[in-house]
Structure formats: structure tokens, C-alpha cells
């Protein structure tokens, strides 16, 4: 395949960025999207140009490092991460525009790389449970109804990639926060800190500069892990409970 790539290039956080156009030949439909960018970077290296900076780590859809707004869709046209997206999802001769996540709390560091440490701070402010360390307790020491365990597990699949924020017209991280709050709130271990968790995580979310949710639904459509909008209702419900309890 031959592709025209329009890629956001920005030297560093302070620099002005703009889209650069590249032609790339002999792209195999079996390549992953990131492998395609690797090929481009090899060519740029060979030509003595600065390669395109982008994030990746596991390249198997579990770490949440890869990002990229591809033709206006977070993680591209399939319901998966950018690293698990393959070039067969595109056609020969396509023009592909690649931009970084756009959100004020996710400042661009270089090219397509953004700083997502805002998410780390949201997790730090409540996305945990407090337990005494020591020997691991028996797995069945605390019974968890299957329904709750399943829901907790489904929401725990959120990999913190930030696609929800990138896709949201309000730049809200409600889906991410909702996934975490629902995941821990479904489990007995998550009850002790439940009220504090939701208040602190939402307060941190707001403080980072993310927008408020208007239930538009672009987040859930973009999420590679198919986290449903339900979690935002759950988040609101937990916050309302915390409000009643005076937090």
C-alpha cells in the first residue's frame, strides 16, 4: 500500500507544531499501525531527519501507552488500541492524519507524545484500597458475589490510555474516573474508602483541568476496552452518596 501521512510535528512542549506530510510506500496490510510508523522512522533516520516521537510499550493492547488520534478517531477506526490496529483497516492510497491527544491536562511533550501524568495523580488521589501487607489471604477469605466480581473485572480492564478524554468534546475524563470508581466500588475491599475515593478523584480530575461531562457518549465509543457509559452514572451516584454522607 502507498499512504499519505499527515503527522503532527512539534519539537518540544514550548514549540509551535504543525502537520507535516509524508509519503510512505510498500506498507504491508499485515503491519500494525505502530510498525508502519517504525518503517517511516527508519526512513527518516536514514535521510538524517528527526524521527516521529510516539508512545508505545507493550504493543499488545494492555498497557495503555499508545495513543494517537487517527483520522479524527482515538486509536483509529477499530475498537482497539493503536498498537493492535492493523494497516488492513486502511486502503491503498489513503491519506491518514495523525495527531496527539488534545486536552489541556495532557500537554504535548513532543510530536505525538503527551504527558498523561494527570491520570497518575487521579489514581494517586483515590484509585486504590488500603490493606495490610503480609502473607496473601486465601482467595476465598472474602466472598464476592459473581455479579459484582464480573462487573469489577470488566471495569478493571481500563488501561488508562486517555482515549476517552481525547474523544470527548468537553475534554472530560469521567469515563476513566468512572471505571476506577466502579471497579473498586463493586468489591468489599473497596467499601471503606468509597466516599473519600470518589470525592478525591473527582476533585483531582477537576483540578487537573478536565472538563465536565455532558453525557455525549463519544468516550465510550472510543474506548478500546469498551468501558460503558454506565460507569459515569455510577460515578455520579457514588458522588451523590458521598454528598449525603457529608463529604
Amino acid at each position: 500500500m502507498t499512504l499519505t501521512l499527515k503527522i503532527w510535528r512539534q519539537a518540544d512542549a514550548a514549540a509551535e507544531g504543525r502537520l507535516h506530510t509524508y509519503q510512505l510506500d510498500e506498507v504491508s496490510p499485515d503491519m500494525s499501525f505502530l510498525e508502519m510508523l517504525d518503517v517511516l522512522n527508519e526512513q527518516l533516520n536514514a535521510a538524517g531527519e528527526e524521527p516521529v516521537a510516539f508512545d508505545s510499550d507493550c504493543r499488545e493492547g494492555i498497557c495503555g501507552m499508545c495513543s494517537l488520534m487517527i483520522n479524527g478517531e482515538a486509536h483509529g477506526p477499530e475498537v482497539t488500541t493503536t498498537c493492535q490496529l492493523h494497516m488492513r483497516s486502511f486502503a491503498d492510497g489513503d491519506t491518514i492524519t495523525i495527531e496527539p491527544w488534545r486536552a489541556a491536562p495532557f500537554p504535548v511533550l513532543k510530536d505525538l507524545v503527551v504527558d498523561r501524568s494527570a491520570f497518575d495523580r487521579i489514581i494517586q488521589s483515590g484509585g486504590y484500597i488500603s490493606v495490610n501487607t503480609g502473607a496473601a489471604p486465601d482467595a476465598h477469605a472474602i466472598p464476592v458475589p459473581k455479579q459484582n466480581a464480573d462487573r469489577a473485572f470488566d471495569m478493571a480492564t481500563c488501561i488508562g490510555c486517555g482515549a476517552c478524554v481525547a474523544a470527548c468534546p468537553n475534554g472530560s475524563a469521567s469515563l476513566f474516573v468512572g471505571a476506577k470508581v466502579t471497579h473498586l466500588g463493586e468489591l468489599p475491599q473497596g467499601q471503606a474508602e468509597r466516599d473519600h475515593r470518589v470525592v478525591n478523584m473527582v476533585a483531582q480530575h477537576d483540578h487537573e483541568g478536565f472538563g465536565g461531562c455532558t453525557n455525549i457518549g463519544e468516550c465510550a465509543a472510543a474506548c478500546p476496552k469498551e468501558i460503558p457509559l454506565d460507569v459515569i452514572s455510577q460515578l455520579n451516584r457514588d458522588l451523590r452518596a458521598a454528598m449525603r454522607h457529608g463529604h
Partner: protein
Amino acid sequence: MTSVATTDLVRGGRSTRTTIALKLTMAVSGLVFVLWVLAHMYGNLKAFAGHDAFDEYAGHLRTMGQPIFPHAGALWIIRAILVVAIVAHVTSAVILWRRAEGARTTRYQVKKNKHSSLSSRTMRWGGLALLLFIAWHLINFSAPRVNVTGGSTADPYDLVVDSFSTWWLTLVYLVAMLALGMHIRHGFWSACQTLGWTSTTRARHRAKSAGIFLAVLIAGGFSLVPIFVLAGVITK
């Protein structure tokens, strides 16, 4: 409320000072409006019962609640609630709108909407348009009252008939009802979601269907009188 990335952790966060508290304010005030427009729409339909029934109803609005309340007392309480609701709704909306603008200062060159409804993406400008419409509507029918045909404004029923016999004014009202319908369609389900009532897929689908039902009912119900006046069915 900063729009730059920070490195510090918030201490002593309060639930009442979050964006979700603002959304709750919007949800509750929005539901007050839904109840209000339902009642208002019901009242309008009295126009089909003719001049006397309609004006009698307009009079009843002033005497309802008597003798517990003074003359027009209940009406004033409702008006006060509506004023509080609109101030709360608009203020929260403006704060959240500004936040959203601040959260995406650099726009995408290419951005697709994969899933969202037009109604959901036009809540803000649509809401603003409704606000302007409400202002005109109050000038038109409450105070000071304007008869665009130049006739009298003393009789409520006659004012309605004169107003909607004017094609362009009917058009303005119909467009406004379209905007209202869209606002309610997304607003109702969004309020349910904000109140935490839609934490399952089924509940979400139900709330969305209820939103569409209410939107059609209210926008459709309000549109009947203007359409039937213009068509010459409701006359003086």
C-alpha cells in the same frame, strides 16, 4: 479551576465543589423545567376548547391555591421557583462551558463524531437559543405583551390567535419547539445519568427512550395550537 497540567494533589476536596455538583444542579433544575413545560403544554391545549375555556383557564392560574394562598400567590411561587431554576441552570451551564473550552485549547484538525446525537452536541448553543426564545415569549404573552398584528393584547385567547395567524411568528415558535425537543431529548436522559439512575445498559436505554418520548410529546403538544391557528381551525 486551572487549565494547565499541575503536579500537586488536591487536599480536602468537597463533593459540593465538584463539576458533578454543577451537573446535579443542572439536572434538578432541568427536571423542574420538564415538569413545568408539561403543565404549560396542557394549559395551551385549552385553546382547542375555545375562547371562554382558554381565558377561564388563564384566570384559574391566578386563583389556584386560594384561599390558602392570596390571589395569584401560587402563581408567584411557581414563578419564583422557575426563576431560581433558570438562574441555577444557566449559571452552571456557563461555568461548565468555560471549563470545557479550557480543557481543549488546541482543536483537532480532523475530528469525527462516532456515536453522539446532534441533540447532545447542540445543548449549549441550543440552550442559548432557547433562552432568547423564552425572553421573546415572555415579552409576547406575559409582559408587556406584544400583538404583532397591531391588535389588542387585553384578551389572552385573541392574542394567541392574532400571534399565530402571522406565519413568520408561527415559524419562529415551531423552530423554537424543535430546539426545545432536541434539548429535552438529550437533557432528560443526561439528567437521569447525572442523578446516577442509569448504571445499567437497560436503564440507560430506558432513559434515552423516555427522553425521546418526552421530547416528541412536549414539542409536538406545543406545536399543535400554532399550527391549528395558522390553518384556520382555531379562530376568534
